[in-house]
């Protein structure tokens, strides 16, 4: 064979050998586990809220014992609603991991709440929602000649970040300050850690049967347990109607957070004579807790009610039922003393598997309170994402 042909043939072989070596050097570390991602367990990123953006950071360790640099390693998330429409996209910052090095990188999951339309945002903050999200990890390898992207889809339950807004109208108190008349209505709510410190606005409105209205606006700093009182100014006439029991008044507290709102309202029953022996029956889920008494497990759920003066001093029957989302059910029946502002505890002794479900679980539970007095029956039922935790 002629020399130029030999030289060309050798060049082709050499070229293909180089490509083959590149391919082998690329694949080898993947087969031998030289390249890998490690999630640091226990370093679960806490969520924070900043300028309407919910952020969670997770540190990951990227090991590159391969022969080539990993370039442009990017982790991004796409949030979608149940119909698959893209709600928000969170793009990570590209990182380079040189060959033979181990790099700890923070994966940031960022969800800009203002990217969501108001209804979705409102659901997310106040009711909690299930969002689909795609996580995508992409990187270039082998002198940027190979690009790998792994996409994993999942659904994720978010929130509610603010829950249990409750107007405690049964604890409302009239107030006279000189010539001024007020009614003080307490309200409570709970905020998740991510929303701690955020300023919200609460508007409490008073409306009576004669069409009289009044309101008060106040700033509320969100914490895990918020207890605030709205001091609503009233006219002399309205105050009089309220005190003699002819006001038929309603109180509504509306909470505004990140351009979204939620409200709760209650019927003010001062002055007596409403007809029902018991009213304002409320399960006080915010005060519920879980206990581990050396292997015996207990759920404590308080409830409150008000008794018409005509029936005070007698006993009513309270039947409280409990369900968890895994099908566990229990109930308890107890007698309660009918006080003007009654408060009682329901104690549920539960088996270990039911305890395991709710301990650290953020489970959706259902509680139903049925109060009966002679032929009268009153019901209050709540679905509740329990935050219960028992320290070992």
């Amino acid at each position, binding site marked *: 064979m002629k020399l130029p042909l030999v030289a060309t043939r050798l060049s082709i072989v050499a070229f293909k050998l180089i490509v083959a070596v590149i391919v082998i050097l690329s694949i080898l570390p993947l087969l031998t586990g030289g390249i890998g991602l490690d999630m640091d367990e226990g370093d679960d990123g806490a969520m924070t809220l900043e300028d309407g953006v919910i952020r969670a950071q997770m540190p990951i360790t990227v090991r590159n014992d391969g022969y080539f640099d990993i370039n442009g390693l990017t982790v991004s998330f796409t949030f979608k609603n149940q119909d698959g429409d893209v709600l928000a996209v969170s793009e990570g910052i590209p990182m380079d991991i040189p060959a033979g090095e181990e790099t700890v990188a923070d994966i940031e999951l960022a969800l800009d709440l203002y990217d969501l339309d108001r209804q979705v945002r409102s659901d997310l903050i106040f009711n909690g929602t299930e969002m689909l999200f795609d996580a995508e990890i992409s990187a270039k390898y082998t002198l940027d*000649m190979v690009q790998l992207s792994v*996409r994993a889809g999942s659904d994720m339950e978010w929130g509610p970040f603010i829950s249990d807004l409750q107007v405690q109208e049964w604890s409302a108190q009239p107030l006279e300050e000189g010539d001024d008349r007020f009614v003080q209505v307490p309200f409570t709510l709970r905020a998740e850690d991510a929303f701690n410190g955020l300023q919200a606005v609460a508007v409490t409105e008073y409306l009576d049967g004669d069409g009289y209205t009044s309101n008060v606006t106040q700033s509320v700093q969100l914490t895990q347990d918020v207890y605030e009182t709205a001091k609503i100014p009233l006219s002399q006439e309205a105050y009089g109607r309220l005190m003699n029991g002819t006001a038929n008044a309603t109180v509504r507290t509306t909470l505004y957070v990140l351009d979204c709102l939620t409200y709760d309202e209650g019927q003010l029953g001062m002055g007596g004579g409403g007809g029902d022996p018991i009213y304002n029956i409320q399960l006080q889920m915010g005060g519920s807790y879980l206990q581990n008494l050396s292997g015996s497990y207990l759920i404590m759920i308080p409830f409150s009610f008000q008794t018409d003066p005509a029936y005070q001093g007698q006993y009513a029957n309270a039947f409280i039922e409990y369900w968890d989302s895994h099908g566990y059910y229990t109930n308890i029946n107890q007698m309660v003393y009918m006080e003007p502002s009654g408060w009682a505890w329901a104690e549920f002794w539960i088996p270990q598997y039911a305890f395991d479900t709710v301990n650290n679980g953020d489970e959706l539970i259902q509680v139903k309170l049925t109060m009966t007095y002679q032929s009268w029956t009153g019901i209050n039922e709540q679905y509740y994402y329990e935050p219960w935790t028992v320290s070992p």
Partner: protein
Amino acid sequence: MNIGEFDKKHFSLVKGGLTATAHALKYLVIPYVLFAVGLMVLAGQDGPQRVGDLLGDLQTLVLIFGIVLTVLGFFKGAYPKGSYSRFLFGITASVLVIVYVFSLLLDGRTEDIIAQEVFELDLYLLFIRFFFPALLAVLMQFGEFADHRRQFLEREGKIEVKEREDPKDHQFYHDFRLRYGSLYNGLKLARSTLIGFVVIPLAVIILLKAGFSSLNVQEVDSMMSNLDDISAYMVMLGVPMSVLAFFKGFYPKGSFSRFIPAVVMVLIALYWIWILGLGGQFVFDSIEDISINLDFSKLLILLMVGTALWIVYYVLELLLYRPEWKEAGFPSDLLEERKVRKEARRKAKEERKAAKEKVKEEKRAAKEKAKEPEKEASNPPEDKKE
């Protein structure tokens, strides 16, 4: 048939021994050793008896067919190319190879035992893949006979030596004349192309599919369907490539009739690589909610660039071999003719060298002759001075 071509005057023990050795290694020693190793491994691991029995039966078959093929190889190699004697032994051996491989299936027993021990593998399908190149190997014997018959008869003095073609009358399109071709070379290259681009890839795909099926996992269904698509492409591209390879091998180096199919083959090979490389995109989304996308198109293009360099090679081949082919009177590209041409070139080179040396010698002698009178003039003899 001319019985005289079986005469011992045509017989070469050395050549026969070489071919017999090659046949013995290929059909007897290597398979026998492989089965023997299999038996040893099986004995060491206390493997199932039925596999041991199978390997024992296969060894017996290897011994029988291997010895017969070695003997046939000896006679084939011993007789010269273009003779009826070589043709007869050659064609018998190549047909026997097909029977040999088919008998290794043991009427379905081999397949059954593989299915019981490993996974279900359609050995008959694999045999069909093997059959086509084996058929080409049979045709190669015809090709070799047809190619060398004339030279054989010329050597025997039974026909006149063909006259060389005048290069002046030759146009480039004359390169496609069938008389320049070698059937043997064409069939040989077509066969190796069919093996490399169709048979081996399809055999690998059959093995992969059998392996995947044995997993019984739904996630590999899409991959299996991909493999079916690739199989179809392998046949659709591999068969035309084999046809082109025939013409590339058929025509001699330096001819356009070889250059054109060679370049088209490279282009198809580029597409073949692209298809086999899944267009540089590997998508795996069979696992629920997880999809893996590997884009290695740049790496694949690099590999294709390496393959495309063969175009440069064939251009160079055309440029470098064409003058030589023309000078030799457009012969077909037979091994013997190449040897003759090479020998002629070597002799011509030696003659040119000798002529140059002679010219140099003569020049040197002439110079020395011219210097002698000058010397005599500058140093006159003493008697003359006086």
